[in-house]
Every structure is written in C-alpha cells, then in structure tokens.
C-alpha cells in the first residue's frame, strides 16, 4: 500500500471549525478499514492535538500519514511554545483562560490523553518558537479489518 497523506491548515481560535480535521481523519480511517479501537485512539489524539494548536498556538498545521506499518500524526504551530514540557504533561496542568474553561477546555488532560492513546509521543517546543507534536501508532496486519470480506 502506498502511503496515504492528508494535511490541513488550522485557524487559531476558530472554535466553530476546530475539530473538523480530526473528524475528517476519523472518516478517512474508517473508509480504509482501520480497526475501530485504533481509529478511536488516533481520533482522540488528533482532536486533542488539533484543539491545542487552535487554542494555544498560531498558524497550526496538521498532517496525517498512513503507512503499511504505522500511522503518524504531526501537528505543529508557530505559537508561544511550551516552556516546561514535563510540567505541561502533568495531568491537570493547564494555562487555559477562564473563557476557554467555560467552553469545556482546560482540564489539563489533552497531553496526558495523547500520551495514553498513542504508541509514541514526541514534543518539540521552545518558548516563542512554536510547538510540534508527533504521535505514532503501530499498525499490525490485524489492525486493518478486511472490508471487502470473504464473499459468502
């Protein structure tokens, strides 16, 4: 299978459209027959990453690549960056404003959720330079359901 790639630009603070890239990825993975438990993990990571780029970052970009052996989510932005990554990874740590909390964000669970649901999470960030979050998911041969099935 040739690698399948898709990319999206994310508009900062556009909460009406935020999440659409992730939902589109979820649909794409359904169409190519990825197993549903894995789709859910990828979708959760995609959504948390997309929301962070939209909420905390500037000029976000979101890419997904599906290879034979893995799925890669690569989400980056040119925002303020994360000063202390270890601290940001702590459950409950959030700098979200009151306004964002009222919108349902700021539990400080996004990065911990990405860590839990991906097989590997890499964060590159520097204050004032932006943030890049790369998540990898291994694809075993069994991760792809046989969509066409054996004919009856």
């Amino acid at each position, binding site marked *: 299978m040739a690698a399948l790639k898709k990319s999206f630009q994310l508009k900062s603070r556009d*909460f*009406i459209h*935020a*999440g659409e890239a*992730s*939902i589109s990825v*979820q649909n794409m993975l359904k169409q190519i027959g990825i197993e*549903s438990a894995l789709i*859910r993990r990828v*979708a*959760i990571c*995609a*959504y*948390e990453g997309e*929301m962070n780029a939209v909420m905390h970052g500037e000029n976000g970009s979101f890419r997904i690549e599906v290879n034979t052996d893995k799925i890669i989510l690569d989400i980056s932005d040119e925002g303020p960056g994360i000063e202390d990554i270890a601290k940001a990874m702590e459950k409950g740590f959030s700098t979200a404003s009151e306004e964002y*909390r009222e*919108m*349902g*964000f*700021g*539990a*400080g*669970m*996004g990065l*911990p*959720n990405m860590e*839990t649901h991906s097989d590997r999470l890499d964060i590159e960030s520097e204050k004032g330079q932006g943030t890049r979050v790369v998540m990898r998911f291994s694809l075993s041969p069994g991760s792809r359901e046989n969509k066409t099935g054996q004919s009856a």
Partner: protein
Amino acid sequence: MKLSELIDKIDAVVISGDHKLDLDIERIGASDMMSDILAANLGTSSMLLTGLTNVQSIKTAVIAGVEAILFVRNKRPPQAVIDTANSHGIPLLTCPYSMFVTSGRLYAQGFTGLNGLR
C-alpha cells in the same frame, strides 16, 4: 436501557434525533470538561451528560464514539449545534434536573460510568 425508556426516568425531552430512541445505552459520563470525557476508557453504547451546549460537545462525542448527549438544567444548544449533531446522527435530549440529581437518578437505574465501572 433504550433511550426511550431512559427519558422517562429523568423527565427528559428530545431536542433532536427522535428516530434514534431505540438506541441502547449502558454507560454514561458526566462532565463539562471535554478532555475528561476523552480520558475515559470508552466502551460502546455510551451517553454524555453535560451542561455544555457548544459545538465542541458534539465534536467530542463524535471523536469519542459517544452515541447520545443529554443536557442538564433544561439547556438547549443553538440551532447550528443541533444541525451538527443531526449530521453526525447523535440524538440530543434535555432534562430539568441538575447534573448531580440527573446523575443520581440514572445511577440508581443501574448505568455504569464510561469505563463500565460503578
């Protein structure tokens, strides 16, 4: 329990998706924080209980695979949010009780949390 039966336990009304009332619900999560819902070890046949009526509650449900949303305190989302829910086939309900009382009533009916535990 079917959504149609669950509705009676909490005096809920259907905002949209009345053709989905035979959905079977087993697990319920209550939160106004979307990442808390996504942190749960989700199973199927689940419903979200929330006071948050913006479009992100619908998108969180879509991402998490949550099948229905119940708003508390008679809250109703704006029409654009209802349209989004319809486009994803997620029925929306509202009930007059607080999050605490709604949760208690549903817990008493034997529902589990999103992770299947009580």
